[in-house]
């Protein structure tokens, strides 16, 4: 037994947060090994050490049955360190090695949603606790068809990665494909769900094909559509795949509001997408190449505003975009109190001063602010980033070629979207390929209770609930 303890000490590098305790019961040595920071000290004292003080020689042979712990198992010598690092207390007695779960709660519990706010609907969000996250989904879908596969990923971290799906709805090939992709990950550690995204994405595109969410209700809805959810230990974001382009225009709030209102909001979001991506480019094109497209009164207004600006319009636009991005980045990294001060300083004072100093024209500030704000209509940060990139690409094209440049850039963007896939499913569905039944839940939103079909691209089990 001493040999085993010495081996473990050596393996753990004599780190001081690992506790090695030795007690003697009826002249028999019992060793306890645990990690101080991962285990609950009071549980060890109250339920383990106190019990052991009343044990005798006979009890040591039957520890597995008399210890008051629901997760206690006999393990092999080579598994000791793994269990210690997972919050288990190792008890070596009577030539047996037992692992007793005494994990400390190191999570923040179920908190309210921070990034995907909704007006109505549930407010609970995922946390870093794997089991809590799993429970939040199981509480919503109680079906026995909600299946679950668990895989350890990461040589050092051995992070638990779980694949969740509805067995009666999902396309099994998709599950196998995702499981194979995850198994093939050869990496030191998985610190967050975003580490897995790179492996699961089919294409190297700016546009997102995997959705990450902290909303359990969103994951539940996706699972019932035939999608797959991936839960990662110590990550408060769950991945959903496959996704279509139009999915990023939807929010969970859409399903908690009247269909007619949702349809209106969805149309607004589509407008916002075009404003966010095209507005600065369009402004540059019409003011530097195609002035004939501007009504005379507006042309005079624009000319008056630009009359004192010393830079070309495109330099002014790029300067504004970069300034806005710097402002946004600094605002993100600051605490909320300092952040608001930066917003005021950057947005109001700097903007006003730039116009007064004659460096910027007011119309350019309006154009860039409007396109940036329109971009933030979307909850997916990857989509927001893609919009930012394409905004700059189209701006440069419009500066070189005018409206023709925007046309060329838009054709290229459309080509990229059409050729994009998410787990081999066409990204632009249900528009390309056209799926009539799915159009009902793309721009237009059908009532939740009247939905007859699931997306035939995702599942063969296409009829919902009462229509089966």
């Amino acid at each position: 037994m001493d040999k085993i303890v010495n081996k473990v000490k050596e393996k753990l590098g004599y780190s001081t947060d690992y506790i090695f305790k030795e007690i003697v019961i009826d002249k028999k040595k019992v060793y306890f090994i645990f990690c101080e920071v991962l285990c609950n000290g009071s549980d060890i004292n109250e339920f383990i050490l106190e019990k052991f003080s009343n044990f005798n020689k006979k009890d040591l042979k039957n520890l597995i049955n008399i210890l008051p712990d629901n997760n206690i198992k006999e393990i092999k010598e080579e598994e000791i360190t793994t269990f210690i690092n997972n919050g288990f207390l190792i008890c070596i007695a009577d030539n047996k090695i037992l692992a007793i779960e005494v994990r400390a709660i190191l999570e923040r519990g179920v908190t309210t949603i921070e990034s995907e706010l909704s007006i109505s609907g549930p407010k609970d969000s995922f946390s870093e606790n794997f089991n809590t996250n799993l429970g939040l989904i199981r509480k919503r879908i109680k079906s026995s068809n909600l299946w679950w596969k668990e895989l350890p990923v990461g040589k050092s971290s051995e992070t638990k990665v779980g694949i969740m799906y509805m067995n009666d709805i999902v396309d099994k090939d998709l599950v196998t494909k995702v499981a194979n992709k995850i198994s093939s990950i050869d990496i030191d550690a998985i610190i967050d769900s975003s580490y897995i995204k790179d492996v699961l994405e089919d294409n190297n595109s700016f546009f997102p094909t995997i959705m990450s969410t902290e909303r359990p209700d969103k994951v539940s809805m996706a699972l019932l559509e035939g999608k797959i959810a991936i839960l990662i230990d110590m990550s408060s974001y769950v991945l959903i795949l496959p996704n279509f382009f139009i999915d990023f225009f939807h929010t969970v709030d859409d399903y908690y509001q009247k269909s007619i209102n949702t349809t209106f909001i969805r149309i607004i979001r589509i407008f916002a997408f075009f404003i966010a991506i095209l507005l600065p480019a369009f402004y540059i094109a019409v003011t530097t190449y195609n002035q004939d497209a501007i009504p005379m009164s507006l042309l005079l207004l624009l000319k008056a505003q630009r009359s004192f600006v010393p830079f070309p319009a495109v330099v002014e636009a790029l300067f504004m975009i970069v300034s806005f991005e710097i402002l946004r980045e600094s605002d993100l990294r600051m605490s909320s109190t300092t952040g608001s001060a930066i917003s005021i300083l950057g947005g109001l004072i700097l903007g006003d001063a730039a116009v007064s100093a004659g460096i910027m024209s007011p119309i350019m500030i309006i154009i860039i602010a409007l396109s940036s704000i329109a971009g933030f209509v979307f909850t997916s940060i990857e989509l927001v980033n893609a919009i930012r990139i394409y905004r700059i690409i189209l701006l440069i094209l419009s500066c070189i070629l005018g409206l023709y440049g925007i046309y060329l850039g838009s054709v290229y963007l459309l080509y990229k979207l059409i050729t994009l896939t998410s787990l081999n499913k066409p990204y632009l569905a249900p528009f390309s390929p056209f799926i009539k039944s799915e159009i009902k839940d793309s721009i237009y939103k059908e009532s939740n209770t009247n939905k007859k079909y699931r997306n035939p691209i995702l599942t063969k089990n296409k009829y919902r609930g009462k229509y089966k």
Partner: protein
Amino acid sequence: MKKVIYIIIFLCLIFGTNNYQELNSISIITNIGIEKNKSNYKLIYQEVIPVREDNTINNKYKYYESLGESLEECQKKLNEKIVKKVYLDHLENIVINTDSKELFYNLDHLFDEEFDNFNIYLSDNKVKDIISYSNNYKYINSIADRKITYKKIKINRNEKRKSLIPIIGIKDKNLIFYKYKNLGDIND
């Protein structure tokens, strides 16, 4: 190899796109006046300059004149005189003070073939007085209710139909519309 082809295609696409012009570098011409004295032509450009003053935008006007034996020569002289690029795409009116049919059909030489959506007026007064009458570049448009655009004249000519040209002038210090004159009655 693919990249090289893409670069060549891209260069081909951008080749020749030299019509980039900043708003600050164009002179917006809104009204043009043409006078003919014997064999000489006088061409007058009215440039509108929007000026931002105390959160309001006011239009100021600048006039450029040139003399020459032909309209092309006058135009060439004016283009040299005006520092910024002459921008005629938002031209509102052309006022002509001579009875010369040839002049009406010779405007093709001044502008691009597709550019013909401006109004044409005849006047017995000095054209500079007419085009500088009001501080509103659209003022002349409101004088004649039936607008005769150059485009209409070209269509009528091709279809061998009559074209009526409005005659405007200054009477008792007011800019007024007199009557229409048939283009067919104008001397060659």
